[in-house]
């Protein structure tokens, strides 16, 4: 993985930024919510105080019976069919172990007050109310109170159908004298449905249900339960004090709805503030608002409210919760708080507020956060990318520089880049440079070793030779003279060696200082080939040179010298019956000079190194021959390189010889010469 990719990967750590921002926005949102909760609770408290101050008709604490509002009148027939909507709210008033023994439902419409009592009683003892046996029968003693007055009725029936309740007690206080109703039975029990005119609506209700048994009666007694109902007056008072765009509900201690004002649907805010977009709502809902744990059922307006918030409030502790609103992304804040009057909890206030402002606000923050973090991410990514690119470019430069600095033949050319910079790469570059300098010094030492050595050997050699020269003039025996001859021979060979050792450096200097001139390469090659023929005999020398001129800018002596070396090399490897072929071809950017000869092939391992200094394929020089230090082909390479070309050697495809190829392009023309020519 490249450095750049790695750094980009590292840049992903920047993703922590939007995460942190998100956390921050959520935190902010929590704070905002808490603020709103406090506000709503505070305004709820104010509302509660106001209600207390105006002596609103708050329900008494304790159990009560709830009278439902009806839109349409009910059929009093003893069947509960038309009570369907309300039966869910029936109050189970049986004993604790069997609460559903007695289910009581009260309702009223504009004209009538209805009562439905459902009694579970599988063991029926039937008697009419007016029957003497009634004391042993299943019966209900219903007692209604209104103001100071109170009247009791005995309800019993021997058979399903209409019944007349027998009133007891004298003072009626406007209560009806008799109660007519319907009694219906089934296997599980019986139902009583009755009604009385709204005008005679009682304020309290007591009830005794006597389930007559064989040995003992089981009795359910309800004592003077007040009747509660939705109060338009309270609703008006509530509306008066409730904050705007808030739904306020007044709930009794048992969860009955007593008054309601306001609407949950968005308030006046929706005309002035823009509605959050679908995306905003969505992002709010899923990214910001984490827990909408408020009770869903609070959304509806029901006669009875059953919500944890309410129960908490009724225990005296205000509570606040959030739930999803009707609209997408809306949230509803619910505050429930106790309604206290003189230290007594008389009910609870439930305030609800639709909140689009909060999503809007946090969403704007979120959007800004998203934009900022994307921008920051892009910026940081870009900066890191540029930095990484810069870094890798520098490293690549350093690498290329280090590779380039060490030429193929071990010489050090040029310097490593970046050595002037002050950072770690600079350190690295400097280390490289030091290393290369050391290598360069060593290579230089090696390169010059031969010529230095030969230089040092000159003097002792001169001593030996001059001594031998002097010895010749002294009378010595012929036996001794033989030794002198041998010594001279050795000294001569030593001289050759010493000269050959310094030859490479001398040749290098000579080649480097050679001046270029324009000449015909074909003529030079032809001349050389002609000169070689007698030297090569009896080997055959073929010369394939184009008839036309092959112009070249360079040093003909050097090329002839290189050709000499190649020829010399070829001749020494060619058997006496063999052939040597010298050919010249003019190519697009120069010339191709080839010397091929019949003879042994090159070992594969040597092909690349043949043109290096001091590499020789020959076995030890035989006696009397000049020593061979492997400089010839090195000189050939230097000449080729001086002429902008290269030297190569390979075996012939036919497999019976070797070919050396010199590619020559010509020396670069020196500007001084060019101007002189122009003049």
């Amino acid at each position: 993985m490249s450095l750049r990719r790695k750094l980009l990967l590292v840049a992903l750590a920047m993703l922590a930024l939007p995460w942190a921002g998100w956390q921050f926005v959520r935190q902010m949102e929590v704070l905002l919510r808490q603020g709103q909760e406090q506000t709503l609770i505070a305004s709820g408290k104010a509302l509660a105080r106001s209600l207390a101050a105006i002596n609103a008709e708050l329900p008494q604490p304790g159990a009560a019976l709830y009278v439902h509002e009806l839109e349409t009148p009910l059929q009093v027939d003893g069947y509960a069919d038309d009570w369907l909507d309300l039966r869910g709210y029936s109050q189970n008033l049986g004993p604790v172990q069997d609460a559903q023994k007695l289910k009581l439902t009260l309702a009223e419409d504009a004209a009538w007050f209805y009562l439905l009592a459902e009694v579970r009683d599988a063991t029926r003892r039937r008697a009419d109310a007016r029957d003497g046996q009634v004391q042993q029968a299943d019966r209900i003693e219903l007692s209604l109170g209104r103001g100071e007055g109170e009247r009791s009725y005995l309800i019993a029936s021997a058979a399903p159908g209409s019944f007349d309740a027998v009133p007891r007690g004298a003072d009626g206080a406007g209560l009806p004298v008799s109660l007519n109703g319907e009694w219906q039975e089934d296997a599980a029990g019986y139902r009583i449905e009755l009604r009385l005119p709204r005008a005679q609506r009682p304020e309290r209700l007591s009830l005794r249900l006597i389930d007559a048994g064989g040995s003992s009666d089981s009795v359910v007694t309800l004592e003077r339960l007040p009747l509660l109902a939705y109060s338009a007056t309270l609703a008006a008072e509530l509306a008066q004090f409730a904050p705007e765009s808030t739904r306020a509900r007044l709930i009794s201690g048992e969860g009955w709805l007593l008054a309601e004002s306001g609407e949950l649907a968005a308030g006046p805010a929706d005309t002035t503030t823009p509605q959050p977009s679908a995306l905003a709502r969505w992002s709010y809902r899923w990214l910001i608002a984490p827990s909408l744990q408020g009770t869903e059922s609070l959304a509806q307006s029901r006669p009875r409210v059953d919500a944890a918030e309410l129960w908490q409030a009724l225990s005296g502790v205000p509570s606040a919760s959030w739930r999803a609103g009707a609209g997408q992304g809306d949230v509803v804040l619910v505050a429930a708080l106790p309604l206290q009057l003189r230290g007594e909890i008389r009910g609870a206030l439930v305030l609800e507020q639709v909140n689009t402002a909060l999503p809007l606000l946090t969403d704007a923050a979120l959007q800004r956060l998203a934009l900022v973090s994307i921008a920051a991410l892009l910026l940081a990514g870009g900066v890191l990318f540029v930095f990484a690119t810069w870094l890798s470019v520098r490293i690549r430069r350093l690498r290329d520089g280090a590779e380039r600095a060490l030429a193929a033949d071990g010489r050090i050319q040029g310097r490593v880049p970046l050595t002037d910079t002050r950072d770690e790469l600079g350190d690295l570059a400097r280390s490289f440079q030091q290393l290369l300098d050391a290598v360069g010094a060593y290579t230089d030492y090696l390169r010059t070793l031969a010529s230095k050595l030969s230089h040092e050997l000159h003097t002792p050699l001169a001593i030996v030779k001059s001594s031998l020269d002097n010895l010749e003039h002294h009378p010595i025996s012929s036996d001794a003279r033989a030794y002198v001859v041998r010594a001279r021979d050795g000294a001569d060979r030593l001289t050759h060696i010493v000269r050959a050792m310094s030859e490479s450096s001398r040749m290098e200097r000579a080649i480097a200082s050679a001046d270029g001139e324009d000449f015909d390469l074909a003529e030079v090659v032809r001349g050389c080939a002609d000169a070689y023929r007698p030297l090569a005999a009896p080997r055959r020398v073929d010369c394939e040179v184009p008839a036309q001129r092959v112009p070249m800018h360079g040093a003909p002596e050097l090329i002839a010298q290189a050709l000499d070396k190649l020829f010399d090399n070829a001749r020494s490897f060619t058997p006496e019956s063999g052939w040597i072929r010298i050919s010249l071809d003019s190519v697009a950017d120069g010339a191709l000079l080839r010397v091929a000869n019949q003879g042994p092939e090159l070992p594969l391992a040597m092909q690349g190194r043949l043109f290096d200094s001091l590499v020789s394929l020959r076995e030890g020089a035989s006696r009397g021959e000049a020593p061979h230090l492997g400089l010839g082909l090195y000189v050939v390479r230097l000449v080729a390189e001086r002429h902008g070309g290269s030297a190569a050697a390979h075996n012939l495809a036919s497999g019976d010889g070797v070919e050396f190829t010199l590619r020559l392009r010509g020396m670069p023309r020196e500007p001084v010469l060019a101007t002189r020519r122009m003049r």
Partner: protein
Amino acid sequence: MPRSIAIVEDEPLIRANYVEALTRFGYEVRGYASRPEAETAFALRLPELVIIDIGLGDEPEGGFDLCRALRTRAATLPILFLTARDSDLDVISGLRLGADDYLTKDVSLHQLAARISALLRRMDALRKPAEAESVIAHGPLKLEQERMRITWNGEEVPLTVTEFWMVHTMVRFPGHVKNRDQLMREAQVVVDDATITSHIKRIRKKFLAIDADFDAIDTVHGVGYRWRP
């Protein structure tokens, strides 16, 4: 009276050998080990020929300094550099200082002696009027054998002894190709091919300095050189 020759050479064994050998050839030879020693002696009496090593003891360029000092005192005194150094740069520096020839130490005593006698002969010849029979003329070239003097269009070409001998070899038979071995033999030097090439190059340059159109020396590639007939 024998001719006097001074050898300034810091290597005692070589000095002793050369002194002995040249004495045997009939010269009066004195050896000096260092530049100050030689200068002190030369202040009293100048020899007729001086052979100098370039590196003298502690002075790596002492020979050059000595040559320069001598040349200012005696313009015609033959000076020979005999040294272990064989780089072109040293050769050129030595010759620019006015030395008459530059030899490496692998030259044989015979070759050295031949040069010495040639140089002394030239000194003698310069004192006498020019002898017509020893002059070879070829076109604008005039070669006085005894004086070892070559003129081109009447202008003297400042050649060293080695160079003179090379030109002489070619001019004697114009048009004949002289290979490198022949040139070496005639010039009494033992050098490699590259050195012959650089000698020829230097000779050409010296002629070119006088006549920009000079091209009398032909290179016959693979063989050698010839004087254009």
